[in-house]
């Protein structure tokens, strides 16, 4: 199990001296070097930097999708150093992931996708929640008339909005987003960003969003820039 030390200061992410390399020995390629920062509850942080700077690696480490090699990393109060695979799986249930692509199951309608995701936190929900919550979230992202349509009949923007709702429906304390608006139409992009801002302002969630779009910087409380694996 991950040692739980929920910080009184509401720190959602704490990392210091974090380094990561691909390969080993002579073929070792450092990607991150001496990274250190904190993100607290209610913070919207944008992570930017050129391609290959290590943004995705950093986010996957924070999301428990990769094993920590060096340094300290505490996410949602859990120390990830030496955490077991089972512990990482449990941690990921408390994180909302938004990827560049929606990666929805083609056989599930938006409503069913919400039901599936709610299953991760079934102890929180009653029968009524399964009726109301998906409708509320899908209405929030403007898909109130497309709740029971298979993804094949949704536009790219609509599918991505479903993916956003999927990441948010369990109201996670931390949201990790990888250029969620990169391929979206303006309407879908606006809805996506609104939802993320709401999660921060209304629930106190922390958001770490990779973005290359400088127009998004105004939405953020902070912008972290990675260059060659180092924060600058």
């Amino acid at each position, binding site marked *: 199990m991950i040692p739980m030390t929920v910080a009184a200061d509401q720190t959602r992410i704490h990392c210091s001296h974090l380094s990561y390399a691909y390969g080993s020995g002579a073929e070792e390629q450092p990607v991150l070097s001496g990274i250190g920062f904190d993100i607290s509850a209610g913070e919207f942080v944008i992570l930017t930097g050129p391609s290959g700077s290590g943004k*995705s690696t950093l*986010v*996957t480490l924070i*999301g428990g*999708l*990769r094993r920590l090699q060096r340094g300290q990393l505490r996410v949602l109060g859990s120390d990830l150093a030496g955490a077991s695979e*089972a512990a990482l*799986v*449990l*941690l*990921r*249930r*408390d*994180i909302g*992931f938004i*990827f560049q*692509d929606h*990666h*929805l*199951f*083609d*056989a*599930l309608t938006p409503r*069913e996708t919400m039901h*599936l*995701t709610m*299953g*991760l936190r079934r102890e929180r929900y009653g029968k009524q929640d399964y009726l109301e919550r998906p409708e509320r979230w899908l209405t929030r992202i403007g898909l109130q008339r497309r709740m029971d349509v*298979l993804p094949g009949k949704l536009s790219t923007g609509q599918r991505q909005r479903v993916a956003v709702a*999927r990441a948010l429906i369990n109201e996670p304390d931390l949201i990790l987003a*990888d250029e969620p608006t990169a391929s979206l139409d303006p309407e879908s992009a606006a809805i996506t960003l609104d939802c993320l801002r709401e999660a921060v302002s209304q629930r106190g969630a922390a958001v770490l969003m990779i973005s290359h779009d400088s127009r998004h910087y105004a939405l953020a409380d902070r912008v972290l820039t990675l260059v060659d694996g180092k924060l600058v």
Partner: protein
Amino acid sequence: MNQLGWRLISRDAWRSVLAMAGIATAVLIVFVEMGFMNGILDSQLRIVEAVRGDLVVLDKRRLHLDKWDGLLPIHLSQIAVVPGVAAVMPLYQAGMNLRNGPDRPDRRVVVLAFSPDDPPLELGWSRAALDSLREPERVLFDRKSRPIYGELAVGQALWLEGRRVRLGGYVSLGPTVIIDGVMVSSESTLKSINPGVRPIMAVVRVAPGADIERVKRAILGRAGEDIDVFRPGELADREITYLRRTAPIGLLFGAGMAAGLFVGLVICYQVLYVAIRRRIQAYATLKAMGFGNAFVIGVILHQAVLYAAGGFLIGLLAAFLLYQELALRTGLAIFLTAPRIGAIALACLLASVVAGLAAARQVIHCDPAELY
């Protein structure tokens, strides 16, 4: 059980039906192989099942029922005086040419003969048919024989080894792989055509209250080392063992069944592999979200079992129809029973689980970090 597996299959109906059709073909192969194997075994056992007695005495050289080594007449006399024996009923058997009309070709037929006063077998005859055997040169015909003999009507003349006989009625037995058809006559009629024929089997009825095992041992003690004595069930077991192991029908058809199962397993694996490959990023997303490997394996096994169940039901229906046709055309005892259906269903389920686990490896090994 979550509904994801079901939805992945039901909402990809055309692909799923094709997949199930492939699995159904493999299931049908297994059913056909099993049908032929059991058909051969069950057909061979019909004569044993028809025995009306407690013990069956055979010549020791007769290692299986398709060997025709006969008993010596003295054996019958020896058995008859064993304490506890109520009756000894010899059964004769001879291969003969049967001609159904003067211009028709000869067809080989097996003639079973016995005393109509105390038949050693029960072959589904009418009382009148059995009584007709008391008249000389009367025969009964097995109406389940293969159709090569043509229509045989009661009262019509037939020629057995050139001897004119008359049809007195019908029996119901059925052919085997080797025997196309059976006729029944009285012992005296057969001996008038083939005077040297020897009993191929003696059916012993034990006196009421006598211990069958004790009588069996006494017969063996009295009649010497030339004979074997079985209860009908033991004889059936020996015949099945011989056919399965020595013949070796079990090996031949067992290999066919195994091949069918393997084909089904490969089809199931291939279908799942392609379906998972197509959705690998969605599965990886599930893992990223916090669904464990057990959940995704469960989803895949659910699909595997659904494919297998669909394929099995289609295969079972096809097998049912095919069995009827095969039984009709071959005359063999090809039929479905609940244990046989259950055995194949279980094998199918196990194969689907193996295929599902094999296909699930790509999900287990997929790295959700690659989504970023």
